[in-house]
């Protein structure tokens, strides 16, 4: 693997050969965000959208307008995948390169695009019209292969449809026209569901069943803040993003802080490969989500809220803006909500720009502050000192939706659903080798086997529970229960049948973590690269039996010394497959022969010297006559 560390002062050195940015355009963009350095991500996103590049000269100008140094601007610009220091095409086609997409025919789709566009993956056409690239999971695993064409999402691609898309783009069709000729006349919701199916296969009682409008918020204004928090505590609600922290406790910590400002942030950055439940809630239950955030704001006394939407879900932005606007109009956001004195709260949307790490609470806050998405040092915890140093509650989309329903239906109602320690329902996003991929809202406590029967995945050989940072289990573990205490999951269930290569999946997941590590700390930045290299060795059949110990040992160091959740879980694909599929590894190892490691290839080792010396080796060259 090319570890890709670039020379010199970085990619910015390459002068942008893009059309020069007109005078004043950058200043106007900065001005629209109040020349506020904390809005750097918005500024850079806009520059990228308008000029397809963040050129060195532009960075200098942005730095000047916002009072930062050029290197600080470059630090942000070079961190996020959707920002580019080199010119991109006016249309960027991002093919979702998830393992599920690969198994669903990504290769043929890629070939069709490359052929029709006349460029390879990673390239931009000579006329600057189109760029083609891969991007990690965009949250469409139930309708793979999928792609983003600028802000437009295309799903269920085939080689045929990919070719048609490419030809339409070459012919000058705008990305939105690929969805509908009447795109401009469609409502934001219609636009979203035309691009992306919801695939709701099973609606439960809490989130996807009938939901009365704002009943929870009405209840919240009739009781005290502390009563709201007590209700959430009594319901047993735990965070649905993966970590499972008790929501009521989080709110209570934040409420206890004496401060003039505090914040409620919704984490809508689900980036775990195979997870797409929040996408469905954002599409079908946006009011419930905002209601939940508003209730949280009342509980902790926050006046300001941020909805952090992952860059891949930009197609939902309009829909959410519309919902916010409607709620402001109806007095459900803004000053004196529902006529309640001193209950003021409003929300802005913060778009992400392609960084999985921003799903981590601290990194998400950094990103909202206009910084590279790097996790923060803990303590202090966000509930004490979060966004801009103020107490901040960060919860997942699903958690806020649950909170709103708990206020409406009562703590006991919610507490009675599910199992001890895992109360309520959970949205499972199921994809991979099953008949009915999609969303299932189920009470906690079902076994994997029961879920597989529901989704038509009975011939599964392996199930990835909780995405790559969770666990890969084998058939002998399918009796295990989907609860916090047994198999915890943020929602992702990826089904693999017996035809799939476990080591290929592990290799893919490790390359995902290598790509998505923020690079702040040594073990995660470097250790994950080593882990992936070791897995490659296994795949090539070059591993020794002792390499299994190496995998375990290295994983242990990464988990124990990493600074945030990414590094603390990134070795899980390796460790859980070592534990549950040991034969897969042992079948790929071979003991050393004659004291020479199987991994040692004398031919390639001497190749460099051979070229320099312009001589061949009498001893090691197999055929000296060549």
């Amino acid at each position: 693997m090319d570890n890709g560390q670039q020379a010199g002062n970085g990619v910015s050195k390459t002068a942008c050969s893009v059309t020069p940015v007109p005078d004043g355009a950058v200043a106007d963009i900065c001005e629209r965000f109040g020349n506020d350095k904390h809005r750097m991500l918005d500024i850079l996103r806009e520059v990228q959208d308008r000029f397809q590049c963040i050129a060195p000269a532009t960075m200098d100008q942005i730095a000047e307008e916002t009072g930062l140094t050029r290197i600080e601007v470059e630090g942000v610009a070079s961190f996020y995948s959707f920002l580019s220091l080199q010119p991109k095409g006016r249309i960027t086609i991002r093919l979702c390169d998830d393992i599920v997409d690969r198994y669903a025919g990504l290769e043929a789709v890629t070939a069709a695009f490359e052929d029709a566009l006349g460029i390879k993956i990673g390239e931009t056409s000579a006329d600057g019209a189109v760029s083609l690239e891969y991007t990690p999971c965009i949250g469409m695993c139930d309708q793979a292969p999928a792609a983003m064409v600028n802000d437009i999402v295309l799903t269920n691609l085939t080689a045929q449809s990919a070719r048609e898309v490419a030809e339409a783009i070459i012919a000058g069709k705008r990305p939105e026209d690929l969805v509908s000729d009447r795109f401009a006349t469609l409502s934001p919701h219609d636009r979203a569901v035309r691009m992306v199916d919801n695939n709701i296969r099973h609606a439960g009682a809490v989130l996807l069943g009938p939901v009365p409008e704002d009943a929870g918020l009405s209840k919240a204004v009739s009781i005290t803040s502390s009563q709201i928090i007590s209700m959430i505590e009594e319901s047993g609600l735990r965070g649905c993003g993966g970590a499972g922290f008790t929501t009521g406790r989080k709110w209570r910590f934040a409420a206890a802080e004496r401060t003039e400002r505090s914040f409620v942030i919704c984490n809508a950055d689900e980036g775990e490969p195979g997870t797409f439940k929040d996408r469905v809630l954002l599409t079908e239950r946006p009011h419930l989500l905002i209601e939940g955030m508003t209730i949280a704001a009342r509980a902790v006394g926050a006046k300001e809220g941020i909805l952090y939407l992952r860059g891949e879900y930009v197609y939902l932005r309009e829909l959410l803006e519309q919902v916010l606007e409607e709620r402001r109009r109806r007095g459900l956001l803004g000053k004196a909500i529902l006529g309640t004195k001193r209950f003021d709260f409003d929300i802005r949307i913060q778009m992400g720009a392609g960084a999985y790490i921003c799903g981590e609470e601290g990194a998400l806050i950094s990103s909202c502050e206009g910084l590279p998405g790097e996790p923060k040092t803990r303590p202090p915890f966000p509930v004490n000192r979060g966004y801009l140093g103020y107490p901040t509650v960060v919860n997942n989309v699903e958690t806020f939706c649950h909170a709103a329903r708990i206020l409406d239906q009562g703590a006991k109602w919610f507490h009675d659903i599910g199992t001890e320690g895992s109360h309520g329902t959970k949205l499972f996003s199921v994809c991979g080798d099953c008949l009915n991929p999609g969303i299932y809202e189920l009470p906690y406590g079902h076994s994997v086997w029961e879920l597989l029967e529901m989704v038509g995945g009975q011939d599964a050989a392996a199930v990835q529970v909780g995405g790559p940072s969770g666990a890969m289990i084998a058939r002998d573990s399918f009796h295990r229960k989907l609860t916090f205490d047994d198999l915890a999951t943020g929602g992702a269930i990826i089904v693999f049948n017996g035809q799939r290569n476990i080591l290929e999946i592990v290799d893919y997941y490790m390359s995902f973590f290598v790509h998505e590590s923020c690079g702040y700390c040594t073990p995660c930045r470097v250790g994950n690269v080593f882990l992936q290299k070791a897995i490659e060795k296994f795949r090539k059949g070059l591993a020794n039996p002792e390499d299994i110990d190496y995998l375990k040992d290295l994983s242990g160091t990464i988990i124990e010394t990493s600074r945030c959740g990414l590094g603390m879980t990134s070795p899980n694909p390796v460790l859980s497959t070592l534990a549950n599929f040991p034969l897969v590894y042992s079948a790929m190892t071979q003991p050393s022969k004659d004291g020479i490691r199987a991994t040692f290839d004398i031919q390639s080792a001497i190749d460099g010297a051979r070229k320099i010396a312009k001589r061949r080796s009498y001893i090691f060259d197999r055929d000296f006559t060549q």
Partner: protein
Amino acid sequence: MSGTKKETGFSFTIDGIEVTAYAGQTIMEAADDAGIYIPRLCDHEGLRHQGSCRVCTVKAGGRSVSACTQPAAPGQAVENETPHLNKMRRDLVEMLFHEGNHLCPICEASGNCELQAMAYRLDMTEATKFPYLEPCRALDASHPDIALDTNRCISCGRCIRASQDVDGKGVFGYVGRGIHRRVAVNGENLADTDAAVTDNAISAEVCPVGCIIRKRVGFVTPIGEREFDKGLIGHDIEEKRK
């Protein structure tokens, strides 16, 4: 710190040794005061704590934390000098060696290098097991008085913090992410910045390795008479206990 009022202090233990700390102190700060050395690379006296190299990982109350950022807590039992932790630390130091291009025999910093000294301290005496990443990084010799050999950079960011917080300049910063994350300068190259050889960020103490090089002073002190040729890294702190 010995003059500080006793009543504001509290005590905790490091490897069973009772240590006094004051509210707001990190485990490492308290340990330094007490003459107990906790290995570190990205942390440097006088600079903000960063907690990125993770070499200072200790166990506090059973959890692994970075000693340079973790606040000391009353009654806490901290493990520092254990075979397990030193093994983790050695792994991290090895990772840093393998991530960059560290050729000690030809490096100007040899003998003054904290990375090299840490390797000795942590008994990195056998062949390492990690693959070499052999990155291709450039040398920036554009500045009249300073050269940067980023092959030797370990991304500790001490120069970044020193330039921002001590010099008030911001000559350095991080760019990129993941394995591509690295220290870069505020302009096309170093000559393009307002860096001066008199900056704190450029001083020999700030860069722990041989990345930031002051021109025309190379090998002024011969190898063999350099700081870590005389004693293990951390001996200055440990001598406080004697």
